[in-house]
């Protein structure tokens, strides 16, 4: 069954801009990636293998996109895996390192290995207790009781107890952090003894448990929980923070007495050194010349070359992010439904995806993650039909088209590439989309907050959990809403769905919502899903991606 990973925003190359703009520190290039939320279901076993399916078949000698990487396959003893330094060519610089504050994908990729949470997301999207040995929810689903693992030590050598867990959660509750809003539904936090911890909710609220699996509720030692701003995080993870130079490099070393260390799952690598290289072509060249053993953010155009080369291998993880065209429905001309429809009919989504992603992505008409029950099968993207497009233009009173600005954040090459093809196709019916490449900070202030735009492109980390897909960036009071499309029927449906637990019922509501969105031609013209593309040298073994899609887990990787 296809699983949706937590994609960070945007396409492979420079997604340095995907950290969420949060209260405290301005993260400059902050993408509006959605906070992680995991479906409320519990249980499910942790299986080592992350299944990935990808468009590209695993041909050729390279390990290709490991469907199931059998870890012990070559039978060599565990010891040979130990040691070595991984040179990692990173696409986006690591931002600030406060786990409760920082949701940028680039930062999450490293924090994942440093701090850990009470519960962890599994490939099958079940939620496995991690630092919490057991997790029970009361019948009225209002109280969560957990017993903590024992013998877990922090990087600073101190032992983890419920005091640390309570301090971490209280830090988020009383401060101004990413997950602070969720504590509106928390009545009380209790730590009855050293190794048990209870959370009393005011009403059943599924997203809270999902949020506990993200670094926004990671467990840090009590000493750090008191700090207003954590610069060098101390956690319980397999790797500990070593050093960093802003925008240049980040280094983390193996934590000797990691509580969950094992012969089989590592951690094996001694140190992981990330060097930040902005340009995708140079990054790939450094991989081929052997300066790096692993790079993330491979450009779609290089996929063919990488797969054909013998001494490197490609790994894809689909889907990572949804890219869509934002139309400002609060302003002329896109306030008129016919104009939106005209544009929809003018575009050949398949061609656009092919141009931008060289076939490594998929078109869609629903924001729900592919393969999830929330996908409404009979809503398809409108095929290109110039006559219908002209008809709608006439109905809207603009027979010979119109001219609008088309603002593209310049740090997303695939969106820029797509925009060129879109503007070319739209010009066939007289719609003149004037491309304006702007910096991410200008996009944030012009498009996102001041809404002074007509057409733009944006991306969004799709997530298996529907609330993020349908509410977060389509509902007027969702956190990442900027198109001004307001359909009351749609809003009620999605609001109601937020509080339902039963999967079938929620699916019905989301299917209806998809129809309304399509029929009313929402301000979100969905373009394509795109994949996470990683490149690695042949001697760099182990799986790269993790369950949530965009972070990296280095523990089980080793250099032969």
């Amino acid at each position, binding site marked *: 069954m296809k699983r949706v990973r937590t994609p960070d925003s945007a396409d492979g190359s420079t997604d340095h801009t995907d950290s969420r703009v949060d209260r405290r520190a301005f993260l400059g290039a902050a993408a509006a990636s959605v906070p992680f939320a995991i479906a409320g279901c519990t249980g499910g076993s942790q299986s080592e293998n992350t299944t990935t399916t990808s468009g590209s078949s695993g041909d050729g000698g390279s390990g290709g996109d490991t469907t199931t990487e059998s870890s012990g396959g070559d039978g060599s003893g565990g010891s040979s895996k130990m040691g070595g330094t991984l040179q990692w060519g990173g696409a986006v610089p690591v931002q600030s390192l406060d786990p409760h504050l920082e949701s940028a994908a680039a930062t999450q990729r490293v924090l994942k290995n440093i701090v850990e949470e009470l519960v962890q997301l599994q490939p099958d999207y079940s939620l496995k207790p991690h630092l919490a040995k057991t997790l029970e929810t009361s019948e009225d689903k209002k109280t969560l009781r957990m017993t903590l693992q024992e013998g877990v030590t922090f990087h600073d050598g101190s032992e983890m107890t419920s005091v640390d867990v309570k301090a971490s959660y209280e830090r988020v509750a009383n401060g101004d952090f990413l997950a602070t809003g969720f504590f509106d539904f928390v009545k009380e936090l209790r730590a009855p003894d050293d190794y048990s911890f209870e959370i009393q909710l005011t009403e059943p609220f599924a997203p809270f448990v999902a949020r506990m699996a993200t670094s926004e509720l990671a467990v840090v030692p009590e000493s750090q929980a008191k700090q207003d701003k954590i610069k060098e995080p101390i956690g319980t993870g397999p790797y500990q923070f070593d050093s960093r130079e802003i925008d240049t490099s980040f280094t983390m070393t193996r934590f000797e007495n990691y509580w969950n260390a094992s012969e089989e799952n590592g951690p094996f690598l001694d140190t992981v050194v990330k060097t930040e290289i902005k*340009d*995708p*072509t140079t990054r790939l060249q450094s991989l081929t010349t052997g300066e790096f053993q692993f790079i993330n953010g491979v*450009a779609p*155009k290089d996929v063919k*070359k990488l797969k054909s080369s013998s001494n490197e291998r490609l790994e894809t993880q689909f889907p990572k992010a949804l890219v869509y065209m934002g139309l400002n429905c609060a302003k002329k001309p896109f306030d008129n439904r016919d104009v939106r429809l005209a544009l929809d009919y003018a575009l050949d989504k398949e*061609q656009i995806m*092919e*141009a931008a992603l060289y076939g490594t992505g998929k078109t869609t008409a629903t924001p729900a993650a592919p393969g999830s029950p929330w996908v409404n099968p009979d809503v398809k993207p409108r095929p290109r039909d110039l006559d219908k497009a002209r008809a709608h233009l006439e109905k809207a009173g603009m027979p010979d088209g119109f001219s609008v600005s088309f603002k593209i954040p*310049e740090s997303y090459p695939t969106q*820029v*590439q797509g*925009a*060129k*093809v879109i*503007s*070319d*196709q739209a*010009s066939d019916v007289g719609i003149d989309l*004037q*491309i*304006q*490449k*702007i*910096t991410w900070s*200008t996009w944030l202030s012009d498009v996102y907050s001041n809404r002074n735009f007509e057409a733009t492109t944006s991306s969004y980390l799709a997530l298996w959990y529907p609330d993020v897909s349908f509410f977060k960036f389509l509902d007027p009071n969702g956190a990442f809403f900027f198109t001004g499309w307001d359909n009351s029927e749609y809003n009620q449906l999605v609001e109601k769905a937020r509080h339902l637990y039963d999967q079938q019922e929620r699916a019905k509501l989301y299917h209806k919502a998809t129809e309304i969105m399509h029929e009313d031609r929402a301000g979100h013209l969905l373009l394509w899903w795109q994949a996470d593309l990683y490149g690695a040298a042949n001697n760099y073994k182990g799986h790269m991606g993790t369950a949530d899609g965009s972070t990296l887990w280095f523990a089980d990787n080793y250099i032969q």
Partner: protein
Amino acid sequence: MAAEASVVERLRPTTAQRERIARFAVRVRANTKAEIGLAIVLALVLVAIFAPVIAPYSISKTDISHRSEAPSVAHPFGTDSLGRDIFSRVVMGSRISLYVGFGSILAALAIGTVIGVIAGYLGGLTDELLMRMMDAAMAFPPVLLALTLMVVLGPDLSNVILALAFVYTPYIARVARSAALTERNESYVEAAVARGESNRRIIFSEVLPNCSAPLLVQGSLNISFAILAEASLSFLGLGAQPPTPSWGLMINVGSGFMDTAPWILIFPGLAIGITVIGFNMLGDGLRDVLDPKVDTVAA
């Protein structure tokens, strides 16, 4: 009535003026550098003017089925990563480079000359202040200052011209000032003062025409700087906006395909190289032609 007569009289090129232009043309042809430079620049201007006729394809038509094709008969320069014909885009790109080159330098010439000549002629405190301002503007490396201005002004080609004009004004002002300084000590200026001419008239009708030689040279050299700067701005993604076929932008996109489709990068790179060589040679040649000292006839 009298006034128009004198205006007409001034406009009609007297025989002497025609003679002067003819003599100037002879000397230009005699100087190989100026000749080659002029040839390249003229060719470029012609290509730019007739670009729509020369370019076989539209600059924005994407054709995914023919993407990154090697140079062929149909596409003499090959196609880029979106299947667009590179030859047409390079030809249309000449318009962008000339538009930016001439636009920014003419603006810089206008402002810079006025500032420079006033500073050079009046001297004293005005000169000190104006020149310190110019030094300050020159303290910022051109590309860096242009970049900051671009973010301020917003992504548009005419803003590129504004930014580059601001950046190159001090270079022109400096040349204008030193020319005005030498002219100020000439006696014909003192004669004009003795005639009771106002400062304004002396600056603009007596001193300015005589500063034209060094300004012409500096102007043509700066055009090549402006074209290179536009290429750098577009390379950094803040110059011309797609689908405008700016050579710098084409190199930026092409740099991703250097090993698989080098032609996407090579042809715009060659175009910039030849254009800039043309202007530089013209500038150098003009400097020799206009510099009386270099005259070879023995006394």
